[in-house]
């Protein structure tokens, strides 16, 4: 099985080297692709030195555009499995092996690493937690599947989903939106418990005001998403 780990990165020079090294340690059989989303710092150079393949986007596209670039690369190079790992150190590469298992034995098409299935050490602000609970409720209701962590970017997908994402991937804040779309097209989504850490360095791109705007936008996108036909 050809496995690609996609790391979307915007100004993550403080953490990118560690992330890459940990992935090489825990998943030596996987190829690593860093999608440098128009970083203004040394993310690209540090990633190349650490031994990852790097794609430098001419300007910042956001997480949606950056991840889709990764999926396009995965499709063009015939990968069977693509795993998203964030460049800030929140995702623990030790879990990659577990995440891809349901895909290897074909019991799921998409596997989401969830912070909230079992008690974990992950802590976030009350605000964020409320937002996440809201989204879990919304998505679970609309898809008839119980989702605990809808905003986690720590995901593994199979070849069919790689193909789908290459052509259809939301530009803004895709994690939640995409679950609805996948369900609509009858892809099987599994959720597995993982540990996540606080961002290890650098700055988050989500502020409080943006969180509210984000919630509104994503909720709207989700609701409209359920109205979409399964042919896009």
């Amino acid at each position, binding site marked *: 099985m050809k496995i690609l780990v996609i790391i979307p990165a915007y100004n993550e020079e403080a953490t990118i080297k560690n992330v890459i090294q940990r992935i090489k340690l825990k998943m030596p059989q996987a190829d690593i692709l860093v999608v440098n989303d128009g970083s203004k710092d040394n993310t690209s150079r540090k990633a190349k030195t650490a031994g990852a393949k790097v794609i430098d986007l*001419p*300007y910042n596209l956001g997480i949606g555009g950056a991840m889709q670039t990764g999926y396009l690369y995965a499709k063009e190079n015939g990968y069977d499995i693509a795993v998203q790992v964030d460049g800030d150190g929140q995702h623990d590469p030790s879990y990659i092996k577990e995440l891809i298992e349901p895909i290897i034995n074909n019991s799921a098409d998409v596997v989401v690493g969830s912070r909230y299935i079992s008690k974990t050490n992950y802590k976030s602000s009350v605000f964020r937690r409320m937002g996440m609970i809201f989204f879990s409720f919304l998505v679970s209701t609309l898809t008839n599947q119980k989702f605990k962590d809808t905003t986690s970017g720590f995901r593994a997908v199979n070849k069919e989903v790689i193909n789908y994402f290459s052509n259809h991937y939301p*530009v*803004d804040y895709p994690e939640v939106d995409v679950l609805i779309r996948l369900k609509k097209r009858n892809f099987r989504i599994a959720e597995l418990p993982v540990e996540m850490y606080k961002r290890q360095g650098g700055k988050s791109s989500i502020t409080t005001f943006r969180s509210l705007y984000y919630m*509104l*936008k994503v909720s*709207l996108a989700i609701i*409209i998403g359920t*109205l979409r036909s399964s042919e*896009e």
Partner: protein
Amino acid sequence: MVINVYSLSIMFSVFFLLLVIELVRKNKLQERYCLLWILMSIILLVLSSTPVIIETVSAWLDIKNPPSLLFLFGLGYLILYNLATTVTVSKQSERITRLTQEIALLRQKITDMNSK
């Protein structure tokens, strides 16, 4: 049913809202751009279905014909929205310039590689 500015306004805002949602559904309009249109439809719908708001504010502003305020709102919104659109166009212009440059540089690289 009474046909007046308010009821026409209500019908228009409902129609507009459905149109916008349909465009997003068909992937002709991106979610990020539909939010402001949906906001406008909702405000228009609220203003037209509770004429009391328009009438009160018109009294404050000494506007003799309350429905003029509806038009003022619509016009003002369009002007602002147009401005926002030109901001978007500016950003896209910049990106297109950049892409053009990248393509030209790539072509050059390929020519160099072929002649080696």
